[in-house]
């Protein structure tokens, strides 16, 4: 008699070890190129990147970088980033200690017979319809990256989809320590 394999559930997609770096930089020409160049020449992988002016400052911008921590030790990435003179501060947010959100926009062209199905998907995902015409609808979802992933996968069933995502932004979870 053979021992049955323990049940492990459905095969999960391989999980990439992400880390979120919230990087406060001086708002100067070429800063993004300095950061992108550093990642490229040191072989660090960027999973997503979002840049915007920092809260209340014209002088600073905040760059939220989701890094693939398997491509290099996080300590190396942070250490090298810190050496850039225009980098003012780096906050390292481990995913479980962070609130992460991302924006997804998607335009779906549909035949009439698919529209009910689409409306159900939009409602189930808590997405909002932000534009519409006779043949297409544009939806928006501001949610966790996982929820955006789920909606993206669901929309793959439609023939014509144009989909953009912003890359995530993040803040520390309240009441918890960041690593």
């Amino acid at each position: 008699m053979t021992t049955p394999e323990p049940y492990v559930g459905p095969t999960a997609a391989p999980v990439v070890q992400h880390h979120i770096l919230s990087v406060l930089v001086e708002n100067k020409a070429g800063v993004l190129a300095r950061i992108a160049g550093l990642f490229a020449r040191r072989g660090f992988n960027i999973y997503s990147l979002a840049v915007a002016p920092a809260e209340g400052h014209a002088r600073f911008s905040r760059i939220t970088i989701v890094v693939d921590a398997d491509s290099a030790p996080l300590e190396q990435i942070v250490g090298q980033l810190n050496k850039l003179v225009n980098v003012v501060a780096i906050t390292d947010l481990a995913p479980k200690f962070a609130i992460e959100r991302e924006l997804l926009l998607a335009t779906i062209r549909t035949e009439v017979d698919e529209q009910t199905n689409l409306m159900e998907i939009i409602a189930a995902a808590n997405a909002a319809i932000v534009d519409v015409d006779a043949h297409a609808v544009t939806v928006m979802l501001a949610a966790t990256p996982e929820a955006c992933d789920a909606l993206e996968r669901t929309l793959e069933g439609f023939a014509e989809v144009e989909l953009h995502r912003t890359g995530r932004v993040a803040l520390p979870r309240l009441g918890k320590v960041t690593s």
Partner: protein
Amino acid sequence: MKLTGAQALIKSLEESGVDTIFGLPGGAILPVYDPLLDSSIRHILVRHEQGAGHMAEGYAMATGRPGVALVTSGPGATNIVTPIANAHMDSTPLVVITGQVPTSAIGTDAFQECDITGITMGITKHNFLVQSASELPRAIAAAFHIATTGRPGPVLVDVPKDVSQSMMDWWWPSSISELDLPGYQPTVDINQADIDAAVALIEAAERPVLYVGGGTLKSRASQQLIAFAERSNIPVVTTLMARGAFPDSHPQHLGMPGMHGFYTAVMAMQRSDLLISLGARFDDRVTGKVDGFAPEAKIIHVDIDRAEFNKVRRVDVSIQANVKDALIALDASTSPVKNLDAWWKTLRSWQADYPLTYDPPTSDGPLRPQLVIESIARASAPGTIVTSGVGQHQMWAAQHWQYEEPGTWINSGGAGTMGFGVPAAIGAKVGRPDRTVWTIDGDGCFQMTAQELVTARAERIPIKVAILNNAYLGMVRQWQEMFYDERYSEVYLSPDLPDYVKWAEAMGCVGLRATNPQEMKDVIEEANSINDVPVVIDFRTDSSEKVFPMVPSGATNDEIMVHPSQRGKRS
């Protein structure tokens, strides 16, 4: 006071304490060369911008003060990219000022335009594109501050032509806070817990080694190193970038580690149970194959740059500090002299069995390159500064010259830039005119930058150049002999083409030649007696001579190959 941007730039350099600039003018930097005529700063007109960069490096490495280069836009700027990359690898403080096309022309592919801040982003510690004349003083002051503090390095300031031509109200930043560098904090406070953890490891170690790197010279920590080493009785190795940080004549010095290191230095690290790394970075030329490097050693890593910790080798204790401060703190905390007799007994037996050696010289030539270096060293005053290019001659110069004090050995370590020797020697001699400066060069290297001897003659900078002329790109030849079945591919250069004596004379230098030991003695004596013009000596050396010991590329340090005459001994 109203000044042009160009005047403000020169005044800013004066305020920063600059006494010498190495440079070459051109269109976009023309306005800056006008007020230079009225300045007390000495300008040394080079023959190629690469020469300016390496001279500035030689100046910086000999004096500890930042080297300054001034060049024009486009090809002027790209010609100095190699020295910038070299300075970045070796953490040498440089301020490089480049002209740029007018701001209105930037991005239009204008004549002699190139994106030099973009090109040098990855090989400078920082760079600036100055947008207005009023920003110039801050940019220059910030450039010197960044280049010389923390882990030193090159900083480039790109100055568009209209910025140097426009008017500004003179001001000078009176404090570091006015430099407006919110992201740059080079000073660190030593964490006493790290020191305590390091002391515990030191006190428990039975086979410790002080692994001394270039950061020890950068932080001027030689005296503290000697004091700590003598009190702790721990053996010392000095890397290629740290030769001179600890006297070669000191009985605790085991020599240089690495691919062509001394057997005892290499094996001491390999068998050590505690490496105390002082401003070194576990370069692949020191570690060999990392997986097999010092397998039993715990690591204490002292560095001002925390990105060095755990980059190559996982450390047990990291101390973020400059080496001098760390040594002072360690010396204050470590209990005195530990009994390391068993370790020293092992080390002394290795030294007895595997000293540095080479085949005995013959009386009728060709010359042994190692003998040439030892003979020059013997005939030269204490404190003589040695520079080199890159290759076999560099390794022999690092091995066979006795370095007794900081700043006496100047070479291109991390980047391995051929042609570094001659211009670096010129820069060193400008910075230390009181010292004799010899370049130990190869015939391949010499041909890359020899034109700067015209600069040396014109500016009355009497350096001495020893070309170890083996008619080959010698190090590549050595690898082809040892690892490519003696299939020599594109390494032969000819001993007679060019004629180095005539070439030297054409550049206004004294040219000499030696083909056997007697001539060698004579020309060295003659060279040391000439103090008004540069001297170039063509030493005809043995092409088949190889650098030993050698750790083959990709091998662990355990696979070190000693000189053929020493093989078969016990190890």
